């Protein structure tokens, strides 16, 4: 059995701190204990039972929020294991510093989802706000490990200062994708805006949309270094496919144009632009 939490209208009133909803800790609780879990609404503490109708029972590490919690903050923060499913949208800083487990959002997520994440999987069927997988505001290191899959589009600063891990975006991404990236991999199926990879030290950004205007998206401090067929790309794409991320089948084994940079930083990062017509 698992827990099903149905949001009451109250939850949209003010910023709702959901950091206490942790699947692994909910496993052994009874319904009264779940109802008494302390959340925060605005600047006041509030009990979970006041914000959600509770159904189900414990027993496994699975919690479903059956609805939208658009004003939520810190849902799944520091999560270690289990599955957290949201059937609607959720708010800011979802999955911050998560170390393991899965957060599955059927709707969209707001600002800073997966920032400073250390492990686990964050899957979003809708769109993501800015700062996806980036650094917690003020800190200098973004996502350290784990996987983030977004079926829709993402805002600005995807993977800001990310250190390790994988981010894949099914739609387009905003400005500054992979900005100040330290390492890791970012895949974008749609278009990207300006400042892609600006200040990146290492890491790989793969742009899969043939219509990408590279001169607009990438700064002149990246050097075109020719075309090649990276073998690792097929492995990565197969892995994304397995995770349920829609991949254009023409891209397996395709040729890529490689840009090397950012040369004002260490300059050993790369931006790969896929050519879907190149498969032989």
């Amino acid at each position, binding site marked *: 059995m698992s827990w099903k939490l149905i949001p009451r209208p109250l939850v949209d009133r003010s910023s709702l701190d959901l950091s206490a909803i942790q699947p692994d800790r909910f496993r052994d609780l009874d319904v009264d204990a779940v109802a008494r879990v302390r959340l*925060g609404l605005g*600047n*006041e503490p509030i009990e979970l039972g006041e914000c959600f109708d509770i159904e189900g029972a414990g027993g496994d590490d699975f919690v479903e929020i059956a609805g939208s919690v658009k004003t939520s903050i810190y849902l799944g923060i520091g999560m270690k294991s289990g599955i957290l499913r949201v059937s609607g949208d959720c708010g800011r800083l979802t999955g911050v510093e998560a170390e393991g487990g899965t957060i599955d959002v059927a709707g969209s997520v707001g600002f800073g989802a997966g920032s400073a994440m250390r492990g686990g999987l964050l899957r979003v069927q809708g769109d993501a706000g800015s700062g996806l997988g980036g650094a917690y*505001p003020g*800190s200098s290191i973004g996502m350290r490990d784990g996987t983030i899959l977004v079926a829709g589009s993402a805002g600005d600063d995807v993977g800001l200062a990310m250190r390790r891990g994988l981010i894949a975006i099914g739609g387009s991404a905003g400005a500054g994708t992979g900005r100040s990236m330290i390492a890791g991999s970012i895949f974008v199926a749609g278009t990207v805006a300006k400042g892609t990879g600006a200040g990146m030290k290492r890491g790989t950004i793969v742009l899969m949309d043939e219509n990408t205007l590279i001169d607009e998206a990438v700064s002149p401090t990246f050097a075109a270094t020719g075309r090649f067929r990276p073998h690792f790309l097929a492995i990565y794409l197969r892995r994304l496919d397995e995770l349920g991320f829609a991949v254009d089948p023409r891209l397996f084994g395709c040729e890529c144009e490689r840009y090397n940079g950012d040369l004002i930083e260490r300059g050993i990062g790369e931006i790969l632009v896929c050519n879907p017509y190149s498969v032989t």
Partner: protein
Amino acid sequence: MSLLKIQGGRVIDPAEGVDEVRDVWIANGVIVAAPGDPAIRPSRTIDARGFVVMPGGVDMHCHLAGPKVNAGRMLVPELNRRGRPIERTELFPSGSLGPVPTAAVAGARYAGLGYTTAIDAAVAPMGAISARMELADVPCIDKGFLVLLGNHHYVMDAIRRGEKERLRAAVAYILESTRGLGIKIVDPGGVERWKQGKGAVTSLDDQVEGFDVTPRAILQALAEVADELALPHPVHVHSNHLGVPGNRLTTLETFKTLDGRRAHFTHVQFHSYGGKPDNPGSIRSGVAELADYVNAHEGITVDVGQIVFGETLSMTADGPAAHYLKKITGRKWLSHDVELETGCGVSPIRYDDKSLVHAVQWAIGLEWFLGVSDPWKIALSTDHPNGGSFLSYPQIIALLMDRGLRRDFLRRLPERVRSRSTLGDMTREYTLEEIAIVTRAAPARILGLGNKGRLSPGADGDAAIYAPDSDRERMFTLPKYVIARGEIVIENGEFRAAPAGRLIRVEPAYDRDAATEFRRTFAESSTIAASRFQPQPDPTHEEITAPCQKNI
């Protein structure tokens, strides 16, 4: 009338030389003698039998409020978020901890350690309005602040022109209009010189361009003003070259410059380094000579600025020092030019027990505590948050009281600390009475706050009651009772009340006509309307006045 009796505790009140079992009576927030008439019954009795009763703690140097504290909060949101958020309770609003706790959390946590007074050590005159508004939100404790004058344009101009009258009047006017408690001198002349792009001062005799004064002249003139105005607290000096190896020579020279005058030297740990200025790794202790000087001279007092290992935030009016730190750590940094008055620098720092430099700094702080023979000359501080949070005071107390603990701590540090510091050879252990001196009685006396730091009749009804414990850190972390102005703030370790706390300030007598020129200059040169800079009571606070008479 509320009459509180603290019954049968071991009262440690060094200001009166008391260490004995006795009762303490507090009537309407003030300590009174035991009523002679046995018919008079207290309205409340605290059974303190078996407990230790001390005056409320006094932190004479911390950074609690004002523009730079807020700049610090904005610079490191990622540090402030660490740890559990503090939830709203019936008594306190919600907040956060981190290196710079929010206002209400700071007040509550100070009281939670048995402290009832804290003084913010550096507020630019222009930042005073904002600092006061923020201090009004710090509950439980009485507070005050020192006003930065060591790089003030008008002050330096008046010194160059030799206009003592006008200088004295301007300083008094600034103290009165800001509602400050005393004069703070930070890196005299050095901040202004650095702001001009000329680098740090090289000695106390460097000229500050445009003002033709030297750091030495600034120190002497302001110390003289503090004496002439009979301010309760002498000049509070943060000398030049903070944090730079080899700065012990500058510090000694600064001591000598103010010889014969009253002066308080702050966070001396940061000013007692041997080694070569261009090589941070060459740092070694230079405490011995400086502590000897303090021991041998009357009128000089110090607070330590002990560092504590962990992540914290450095914030100072010493722009060049913050820049120096930023160059070493490579971390983010904020610098602010406070027009006409001073500078400001903020940068995060992590004191790491694997780092030789930090380990030596840690040892130097403790060397100061153990090297100054008269505890009345030294006050406990971490320069919160620069050296570490005030929340680590119990840890420092435990280290002072137990040389075994120090030895164990030293073992965790890099081996080479032992050749750079004499801490390992120091066997002194503080007694409870000496702890009461360095955390309460001495800072109150140095600040000239006659009603603080003592438990004799007439003093403010501030007391902390601790349960004796061989684990001194636990003992001082969790007081059994804390009483502020006669009100029980903490009872059995739980908060019962959050009284507002008052602003302590001075009201020096001066020639108002002589301040006219300062007011005119301010109106002409400042971007802030002169009307914002008028002596008027601050409605956000209950104010109390520390009387102007030399206490040291």
